[in-house]
């Protein structure tokens, strides 16, 4: 037994320590070459199976980890009866609205701000210190301040999420400014372009790939902050659902809430990627 283990370990290392043979119709040596979709599908199926197995065999109590069927039942119950008097769809809708409202606000403010910081030393000088100051602070740390300053209503919740989305968007747009080649900028100026025209017709389109990446990172931060935003004085929302369920040790609802958040976030990420392929098909090929 230990012999075979050592052998397969050796085989793995031996594989890394030598060159691969070339294959027909394939460019040699591209890192990460090959399809990973089947492996991923298999891993997901295996994880769910393993989850089912340990709960079915009674190795873990439902309090700690309910079975897959238990989570689905929690979802069905919630669809039928709601949670704390609010329907499943309203919980989902309220949270989605908070995250996307904050996200849109962050786009409207963060992208122009990032472009301005990339283009102009004065804007960079003004906004760099506050953004770099608050960026690494966990939203939970300034949540009390947000509540003291902006009250316990929607405003403080949306602002909390907004702040977590804003920083990556600003940084992405600011870095994206450098994507425009100096030749592209010079070409525009030599046609008599104004600085505003250069920003609008060269710098902003050239920055779009980086901005899309920043949007994907940003919306991820938004969902991460959702639970924190719904910790205080919320009566609905997916984050609120997860938190209150955890207080009553309703682990099945906690897991269901997590999965629903993950599914929405994942679906939106794919939507952004789809739009990205449409809007910037030239990404990486310019």
């Amino acid at each position: 037994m230990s012999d075979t283990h050592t052998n397969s370990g050796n085989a793995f290392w031996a594989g890394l320590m030598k060159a691969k043979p070339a294959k027909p119709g394939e460019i040699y040596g591209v890192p990460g070459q090959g399809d990973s979709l089947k492996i991923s599908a298999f891993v997901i199926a295996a994880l769910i199976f393993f989850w089912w197995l340990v709960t079915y065999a009674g190795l873990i109590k439902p309090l700690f980890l309910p079975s897959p069927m238990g989570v689905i039942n929690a979802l069905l119950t919630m669809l039928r009866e709601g949670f704390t008097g609010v329907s499943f769809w309203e919980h989902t809708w309220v949270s989605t609205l908070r995250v996307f409202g904050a996200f849109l606000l962050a786009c409207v403010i963060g992208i122009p701000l990032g472009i301005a910081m990339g283009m102009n030393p004065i804007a960079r000088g003004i906004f760099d210190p506050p953004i770099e100051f608050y960026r690494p602070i966990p939203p939970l740390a300034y949540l009390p301040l947000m509540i003291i300053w902006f009250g316990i209503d929607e405003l403080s919740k949306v602002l909390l999420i907004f702040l977590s989305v804003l920083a990556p968007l600003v940084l992405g747009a600011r870095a994206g400014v450098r994507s425009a080649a100096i030749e592209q900028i010079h070409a525009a100026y030599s046609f008599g372009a104004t600085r505003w025209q250069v920003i609008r017709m060269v710098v902003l389109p050239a920055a779009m790939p980086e901005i899309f990446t920043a949007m994907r990172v940003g919306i991820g931060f938004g969902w991460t902050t959702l639970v924190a935003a719904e910790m205080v004085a919320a009566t609905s929302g997916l984050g609120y659902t997860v938190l209150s369920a955890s207080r009553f040790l309703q682990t099945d609802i906690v897991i269901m809430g997590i999965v629903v958040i993950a599914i929405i976030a994942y679906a939106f990420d794919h939507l952004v990627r789809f739009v990205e392929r449409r809007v910037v098909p030239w990404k990486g090929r310019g």
Partner: protein
Amino acid sequence: MTALAIKNASVFYPVPGKPPVHALKNINLEIFEKEFVVALGASGCGKSTLLNLIAGFMAPSEGEISLNGRVVTGPGADRSVVFQKHALLPWLNVLDNVAFGLKIQGHNQDKREGIAREFIKLLGLEQFEQSATYELSGGMQQRVGIARALTSDPAILLMDEPLGALDALTRERAQELILKVWRDTGKMVFFITHSVEEALFMGTKLIVMSPRPGRISHVFDLPFSQRYFESGNARAIKASAEFIALREEVLKIIFADEAGAIDE
């Protein structure tokens, strides 16, 4: 009549604790109407700096540049630039890239596309109008760049090694195409290249530049492009004894500069 005049232009960079570095020193150059001036020289001789001065991307430390009597103070549509690479906009198709300068100048869509199509035709890009620029070969991309530069009807075309990134065969065909465009449009051209053969073949005037400090060390008048228009046989001209003799003479000058650089 002089159209472009460079008078005593110098560019120097301050170096802390040392005398300033002269990228260009006392450049005097006149480009007359319908002239095709080629700048050639070892690396670091200031060719690109000179082009940037004319384009208005850089101001001279001393001296001045004027075009048709007006002093150059910044970039402008009377001086179009064709870059070596990276200058097209990949989010626009070929037609919109060619029309880009006209859009900046505020022309309406009909006029933009009318003018752009005229130059797309001149450069032989008709079938690629709707193509993405990144799908084109290097040679085709340069044609788009040249067509775009021509749309603003500039007094002078500034070409910064426009063929430097092309393979040898494409390059020879592009040389002939640029010569024909130059003949048909009658623009002044200031053309930078590293290739002695290209310089001799294309220019009506050759300026050889030397480094440290960047300066014009030799000037030659060239007959070869005129002969090409008469005979249409580019290779025969490039293989003629006169062409080869001049090529070797110019190469000697440049090699001497390069050797000087190694000795320092």
